[in-house]
C-alpha cells in the first residue's frame, strides 16, 4: 500500500472552526490511477494537500510507503515532496520569470543535481512532451496546454512514486483536456507511477481506474 489514511481529521481554526475532514479512511496501491470527486468545499483539495504533505492533519494516521507522516519538520516534508511526490496544479504554478526548461530543472536544483546534468534531463523530458522548441520560452509565451505539459515535465523529472494533480484540466479547453488526460494515463501505464487526480469533471473521472467520492468531509 503506497498511501494509507486512517481516520484523518482536519479542522481549520478560526472564528468559526471548520471541520473539513471527518475521519477519512483511504488506501491507494502502488500504480493505481485514482480520481477524487466532490463538490467544492467537500474537502477534496484539503485531502490532496495532506497526501502531498503540503498541509498537516489534526488526528489519525497517514502512512506513505509504510512510513508514518506526522509532525514532520518542514525540511523533512520538503525532502519527501522533492523526491517522492510530483504536483500538477490547476493554475500550473510555473515560476513566471523562469523559462520552461528552468522551471522543469527546479526540483533537481533542490536535489543538488549539477547544472549541466539538470539541464540535459529537463530537455529530455520537454522533448518527451513535445516541447523541445519551447524550452526557452517564458510561461506567458506558452498556451495553457503547453504550460500544463511543462508542469507535468517538472512533476515527472524526479521520478516520484506519486503524482498528485489538482484539477489538472480545470483551466484547459476540452480538446487540450483530453490530451493532458491521455498523457497522464500513458505515464501511469508506462512508468507505473501512482496517480491521484482531484476533479469535478465527470469526463476526467471516467478515464480513471477508481473514483473516490468525497462529500462533506467524508468518503462516500
Amino acid at each position: 500500500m503506497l498511501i494509507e489514511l486512517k481516520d484523518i481529521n482536519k479542522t481549520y481554526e478560526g472564528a468559526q472552526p471548520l471541520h473539513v475532514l471527518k475521519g477519512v479512511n483511504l488506501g491507494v496501491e502502488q500504480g493505481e490511477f485514482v480520481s477524487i470527486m466532490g463538490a467544492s468545499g467537500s474537502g477534496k483539495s484539503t485531502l490532496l494537500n495532506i497526501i502531498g504533505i503540503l498541509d498537516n492533519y489534526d488526528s489519525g494516521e497517514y502512512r506513505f510507503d509504510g512510513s508514518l507522516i506526522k509532525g514532520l519538520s518542514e525540511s523533512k516534508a520538503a525532502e519527501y515532496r522533492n523526491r517522492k511526490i510530483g504536483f500538477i496544479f490547476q493554475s500550473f504554478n510555473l515560476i513566471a520569470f523562469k523559462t520552461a526548461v528552468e522551471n522543469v530543472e527546479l526540483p533537481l536544483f533542490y536535489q543538488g543535481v549539477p547544472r549541466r546534468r539538470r539541464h540535459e534531463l529537463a530537455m529530455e523530458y520537454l522533448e518527451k512532451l513535445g516541447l523541445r522548441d519551447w524550452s526557452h520560452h517564458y510561461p506567458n509565451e506558452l498556451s495553457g496546454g503547453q504550460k500544463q505539459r511543462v508542469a507535468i515535465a517538472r512533476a515527472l523529472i524526479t521520478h516520484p512514486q506519486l503524482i498528485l494533480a489538482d484539477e489538472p484540466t480545470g483551466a484547459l479547453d476540452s480538446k487540450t483536456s483530453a490530451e493532458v488526460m491521455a498523457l497522464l494515463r500513458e505515464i501511469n501505464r508506462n512508468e507505473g507511477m501512482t496517480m491521484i487526480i482531484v476533479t469535478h469533471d465527470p469526463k476526467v473521472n471516467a478515464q480513471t481506474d477508481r473514483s473516490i467520492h468525497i462529500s462533506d468531509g467524508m468518503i462516500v
Partner: protein
Amino acid sequence: MRDILVEIWESVRRNKLRTTLTGLAVSWGIFMLIVLLSAGNGVMNTTMSNMSEMNTDAMRVYGGVTSKPYDGLEEGRRLDLTDKDVRLTGSKAFRDVIVDVCPTISTSSLTMTYGKKNFSVYTVGIYPIYTRINRTEILAGRSINDNDIAEARKVIVITHLQAKNMLMNSTDYEKIIGRRVKVGNLSYKIVGVRHGAENENDTDVFMPYTTLKGIFAKSDRVDNIIFTFKGLETDEDHEAFEARYRAAINGLHHADPEDRSAVWISNSFTRNKQMNSARNTLETALWVVGLLTLLGGIVGVSNIMLITVKERTHEFGIRKAIGASPLSIISLIVTESVAITALFGYIGMVLGMMASEVMDSTLGHSTVDIFGEHISIMKDPGVDLGTAVGVTVVLILAGTIAGLFPAWKAARVKPVEALSAN
C-alpha cells in the same frame, strides 16, 4: 553558488529602481563612514606630527618657574637647568632607570649665510644620541658624531628645505655636503642634511654640543636634558620615577620637591599613550556616527526585502511544493540582501576613498596661519587596509541582519498558504 547569483540577478532585475534607491542609502552610509574615518585620521595625523619631537620613549626635562615658596625663597623664580643637573641625571642615583643622557643647548635666532642666501636659524648643540632618540632621518651625509663632540669641530647639519634652497631647488642633497656656511661670524662645514618638517617653521640646525657651548654659551646653562629610560612598565612606575627625579632636580635648585612647574618633565611614553587613547576615542566616536548613518540604509534594505518576500510568497509556495527546504529559502533571501548591501556598500566605499583622495589633495596640502604659524589642517587623510576590511565585515553583517527577518518570515509561511497567496 552560480545558481544563487542567477536567482539574485533575476530578482534584482525585476525591481531595478527599487533596488537602486535602497542601495543608494547603503552607499551613502558607507560613504559617510569612510569620509568621517579618513577625516578623523587626517586630524589625528596633524596632531601627531605637531607633537612628534620625540619618537622614541624618552623624557625631556627643561626649566620652568616655581609655583611654591620653599626654603625661604619666594615663588615665581625662573629656573634654568645647568651642567649640575646633567651630571645628576647621569649619576649613579638614576642608573637603574636612565640609560642615555643628552643635554642640548640652543642659541637665539642667528643668520646663516650661504653665498648670497641668508637663513634665519636656531642652532642647537646636540650629542650623537639626540638624532637617535628623535629618529632624525639623515638624507645625505651624516649626523653629529663622537669625534665632532670630542674635538668641538665646526660642523653643521642643516634641514632639507635649507639644502634645497641652497641648491636652487635641486634635491640632490649630496652636492651640498662639504660646503661651508657662515653662522654668526664663523664658518662651518656642512656634514649632513636632515629631513626637517615640510614647513618653514623648522629652522633648527644641529652642531656638536661642545662646539656650541664653546662659542655661544659661556655660562653652564643647559636648555634641555633628554634621556632614554628602561624598566618603567606601568603608569605607576612612571609616576614614581618622575616624582623621584623631580625631587632630586628641584632639590638642586632649592625648589619644593613636589613643585611640578619648577622643572618640567615631558614624557613621550605617557604622552603617546594619552594620544593613542584620544585617537581611539575619536575613532570610536566616528565609527558610531558612521554606523548610525549606515543603519538608515540597512533598515531600508530590510524593508525592501520584506516587500520582496511578500510579493514572492506565491513563488516561494511553488518552490516549497517542489521541494525547497526552509533553509534554501532563507539562504536565497539572505544572500540577496548581502549581495545588495555589499555591492552598493562597495560603491560607497570607492566613492568615499575617492573623496578622501580629494580631501588629501586639497585640505591635506593647505595650511592655515594661526598666530603667524603655518598649521596644516589635515595631514594624509585616508583609511588603511584594516579599516577597509572592517567595513567589509560590517557590510556582510549588515546585509545578513537586514535579510534575516524577511527570510525567516518567508520560510515560516506554510506551503498551502503560500500557494494560495495572490
